[in-house]
């Protein structure tokens, strides 16, 4: 067969442009031509003699007339007029084509169709994924779907036969074979992380869903599955018609390497769908040291990390969203995400999804206009669209405020609050992981928010006001979860469990019914008081787990500065009582590097540990070998939206000196075990927590240098972080903010007023405490918080 010369790629593009073919269609044609040509070459290796030049040319021009109604016929006429008869026949037939029964009979037309049936827009996605989209278009017309499906069966079979003939998947020719997952999993640690299919995980027919949502946790499966928010949002979204929410976790290095080696991208856990083909991708920001994992996951998914690089059309890439506590200072990741959801997600996230679906419906077969969608989204309370705001820097490079780029965007974004926790969604069938995860039990949230007002604590500020869930509801949900999961352990969650008004009655009721079912109850976040101990004793009986208290600071002066509101006597009598009731192990949490801290305050930690040991021994009546105390010390990190948001973090050298001092001082105390947090990791955490938009360059650089899983001590690399900050031109020193300086998170409001925070800071310096707000409103600035009413009751 004589092969003639056809116009090359560039010449084809010129032809397409002359005929006013839209740019996205041109990109589609180029991708189809690439796939078809490679398949043609491979088939020729197996004995066929196809004209690859013709394949490329016909594929490049197959949609030249796509803007017209009968685009195949119109395109064919155009080519015919130009004198390309064979190509014209291909274009003419490409829409209605049926594959022959044997690959032996494959012609150039068949190969072009293989390309066209496996490329979505400008990317190879494989036949199944491509057909899912076709089917989705006719979701409401079952009569059409039935016909399509029977035709697809033939095509699917023939594409499979092509793959058999060329000895591997078509994706493999492009360097991205959808490799056998099994073969990859046989080579990695803990393969159970990647299999999905757990009890109560949700499986929907993906093809007929309007919105494919990826819920991403930027750490390993075991960590992400321990987060209660994941269970809530996952089941909440999957309860919506037309939405399929799947989970995505950060792959461990070994799995990522092996997948990359085979050219496979980041995939969802449920259906192993490429993450870049989803409609929306939502990351939770639970801790700052997970940021490099986000950069890495996006890279692995083939999604540009900066929103500006993802183009104006939604559909080319997912809409990237983020939420969680760290989004109260979204700025370090502002150039990455299309939008942030500030505050509680139970109401705002479904609203956002509904809005996206209506935009998608309006766009028909075309792509959603991202800008129009984001403008609409910014009207939802609690949604922050960072591209509508531009930071202003002074000549010396100091952040000095925000300029609005889109006038209708709100001046301040006030967090979303679910007012009534009794109406908020609680899953009854949480997913039960197949491998052991960190928090492997039924978890029921009993209240949200906290009344204490500890001045270092971000959670205590941003989750205000305190909202309790009804006892009956908690009980019902807990029992429903136990029945649907088969768990033998249950936990009540909140920021300070003993502050729940009916905690004793609730615990007693649960303890009784759980005992009968061989279910153990754990109650974390208890305060140091005898009431809590009695309750624990009643629940756990002889099965005593370790006991953890958080005095946070070693001297009364220091505890008053941070507004902890407990005395040394509270701490010591709690230890005495615990030892007397039979506990043999107590753990204390302390912080160092708190504002105004002196050497005396640090020594106070060792002092209180020694006193606690003495109390325990006395309580145990001098019985030997009975009691162990762990002193765990972490480094204070100033966080946005707290009274300490303005202060610089203590230098890590100085923190380390304090660690050594304590280590030395406690080395002589028998029975006391000393643990401390890496001061270097805390340093980076502080820089990320209060950074502005320029910090993203440092995060990206760190990821590029190999940083990832920074919260895993063995993976944290301080020198690389320093190098990254220096390369990005961002200061690696923790700086204080003067009272007049603009804060990068000022346009985000958690409801607590700046005036209140400043007043609390003044009181901290004077060592004056603030009572918990159940005793009367402390004026934190929150409107309509419901606490005042509670107080009256």
């Amino acid at each position, binding site marked *: 067969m004589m092969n003639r010369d056809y116009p090359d790629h560039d010449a084809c593009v010129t032809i397409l442009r002359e005929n006013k073919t839209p740019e996205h269609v041109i990109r589609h044609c180029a991708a189809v031509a690439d796939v078809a040509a490679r398949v043609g070459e491979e088939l020729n290796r197996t004995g066929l003699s196809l004209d690859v030049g013709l394949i490329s040319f016909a594929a490049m021009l197959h949609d030249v007339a796509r803007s017209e109604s009968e685009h195949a016929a119109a395109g064919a006429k155009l080519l015919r007029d130009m004198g390309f008869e064979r190509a014209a026949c291909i274009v003419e037939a490409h829409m209605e084509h049926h594959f022959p029964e044997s690959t032996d009979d494959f012609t150039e037309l068949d190969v072009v169709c293989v390309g066209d049936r496996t490329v979505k827009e400008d990317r190879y996605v494989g036949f199944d994924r491509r057909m899912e989209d076709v089917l989705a278009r006719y979701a409401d017309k079952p009569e059409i779907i039935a016909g399509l499906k029977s035709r697809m069966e033939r095509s699917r079979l023939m594409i499979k036969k092509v793959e058999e003939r060329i000895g591997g998947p078509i994706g493999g020719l492009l360097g991205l074979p959808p490799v056998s997952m099994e073969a990859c999993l046989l*080579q990695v640690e803990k393969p*159970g992380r990647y*299999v999905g*299919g757990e009890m109560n995980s949700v499986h929907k027919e993906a093809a007929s869903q309007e919105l494919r949502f990826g819920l991403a946790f930027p750490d390993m499966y075991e960590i992400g599955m321990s987060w209660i928010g994941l269970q809530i949002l996952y089941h909440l979204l999957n309860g919506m018609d037309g939405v399929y929410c799947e989970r995505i976790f950060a792959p461990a290095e070994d799995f990522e390497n092996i997948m990359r080696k085979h050219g496979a991208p980041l995939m969802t856990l449920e259906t192993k769908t490429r993450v870049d083909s989803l409609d929306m991708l939502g990351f939770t920001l639970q801790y700052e040291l997970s940021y490099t994992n986000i950069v890495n996951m996006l890279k692995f998914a083939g999604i540009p990390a900066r929103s500006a690089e993802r183009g104006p059309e939604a559909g080319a890439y997912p809409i990237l969203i983020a939420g969680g506590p760290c989004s109260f200072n979204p700025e370090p990741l502002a150039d990455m995400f299309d939008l942030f959801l500030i505050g509680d997600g139970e109401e705002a996230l479904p609203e956002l999804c509904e809005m996206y679906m209506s935009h998608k419906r309006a766009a028909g077969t075309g792509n959603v206009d991202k800008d129009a969608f984001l403008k609409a989204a910014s009207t939802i309370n609690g949604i922050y669209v960072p591209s509508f705001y531009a930071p202003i820097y002074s000549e010396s490079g100091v952040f000095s405020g925000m300029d609005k780029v889109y006038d209708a965007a709100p001046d301040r974004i006030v967090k979303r609050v679910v007012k009534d926790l009794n109406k908020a969604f609680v899953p009854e069938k949480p997913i039960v992981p*197949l*491998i*052991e995860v960190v928090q492997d039990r039924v978890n029921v949230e009993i209240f949200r928010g906290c009344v204490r007002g500890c001045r270092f604590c971000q959670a205590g500020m941003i989750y205000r006001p305190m909202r309790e869930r009804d006892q009956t509801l908690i009980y019902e949900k807990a029992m429903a979860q136990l029945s649907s999961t088969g*768990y033998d352990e249950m936990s009540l969650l909140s920021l300070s469990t003993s502050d729940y008004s009916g905690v004793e009655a609730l615990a007693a009721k649960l303890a009784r019914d759980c005992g009968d079912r061989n279910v153990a109850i754990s109650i974390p976040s208890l305060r140091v008081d005898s009431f809590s101990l009695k309750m624990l004793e009643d629940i756990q009986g002889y*099965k005593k787990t370790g006991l953890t208290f958080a005095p946070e600071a070693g001297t009364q002066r220091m505890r008053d500065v941070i507004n902890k509101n407990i005395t040394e006597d509270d701490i010591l009598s709690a230890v005495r009582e615990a030892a007397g009731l039979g506990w043999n192990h107590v753990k204390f949490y302390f912080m160092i590097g708190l504002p105004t801290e002196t050497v005396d305050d640090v020594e106070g930690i060792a002092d209180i540990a020694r006193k606690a040991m003495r109390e325990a021994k006395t309580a145990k009546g001098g019985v030997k070998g009975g009691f162990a105390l762990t002193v765990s010390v972490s480094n204070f990190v100033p966080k946005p939206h707290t009274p300490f948001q303005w202060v610089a973090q203590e230098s890590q050298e100085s923190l380390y000196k304090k660690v050594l001092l304590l280590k030395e001082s406690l080395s002589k105390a028998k029975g006391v075990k000393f643990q401390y947090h890496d001061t270097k990791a805390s340093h980076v955490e502080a820089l990320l927590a209060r950074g502005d938009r320029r910090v993203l360059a440092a995060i990206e650089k760190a990821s590029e240098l190999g940083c990832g899983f920074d919260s895993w001590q063995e993976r944290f690399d301080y020198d690389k972080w320093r190098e990254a900050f220096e390369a990005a031109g961002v200061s690696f020193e923790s700086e204080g903010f003067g009272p007049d300086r603009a804060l990068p998170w000022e346009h985000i409001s958690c409801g607590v007023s700046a005036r209140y925070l400043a007043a609390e800071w003044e009181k901290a310096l004077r060592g004056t405490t603030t009572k918990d707000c159940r005793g009367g409103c402390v004026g934190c600035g929150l409107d309509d918080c419901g606490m005042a009413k509670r107080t009256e009751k």
Partner: protein
Amino acid sequence: MKYLLKFEKKGMMIFISHLDTQRLFHRLMKRLDVKLKYSNGFNPHPRLSFAQPLSVGHSSAAEYLEFETTEPIKFQTFKESFNAVAPEGIRLLESWSLRDGGKAVAAVAAAARYRLEIPFFFPCMEATLDFFASEAIFAEKRSKKTKSVEKVNIRPHIVALKPLLVSDGDVVLLSVLHANLNPEVMLRSFYKFCGKAYERESIRIERTSVLGWRGDELVPLESICLE
């Protein structure tokens, strides 16, 4: 009351370890409202045990689980409700009542039959016969006690080994191995014997049955336990 279950473990579930599978069954039973009997003592745990552990990555057409309850289970609906809630890949095949006082299944399990699917790489048929005909086959095994690597003769633990040629030139080895011999240990030796590099990811391993001794004959586990 004592029961014996026979189930299969396939698909993605082959990546769930022995311990995790144990936890899964414990939860499944609780979820199905089966009143498991707990051990006495300070840390009660349910009486639930498998005939023979299955390595991660191996599938199985016949796994056995034995457990005790304080109330009888509802046989009519048990299989259906079990399979409705079990993750895809775990499927209950049969369940039986066991008489009291019988031997524990783990004690009965003496050997297992495996189907080993290996990719074509050479005239494997003869090699298998030669390998099986060897008087002694030495394999490296890590000693549980001393943690050191020891050379042991595994030949006495290979009861049967038969090669089959299937379509596309792939080879299937049907083998019967004593319970103390992991098929992977034998396969490593076999690859070495053939002078080939061992590639775990290209091999499929499936346990097709668990066997116990009746006299000097190896028979399926249930036929002994139900005697």
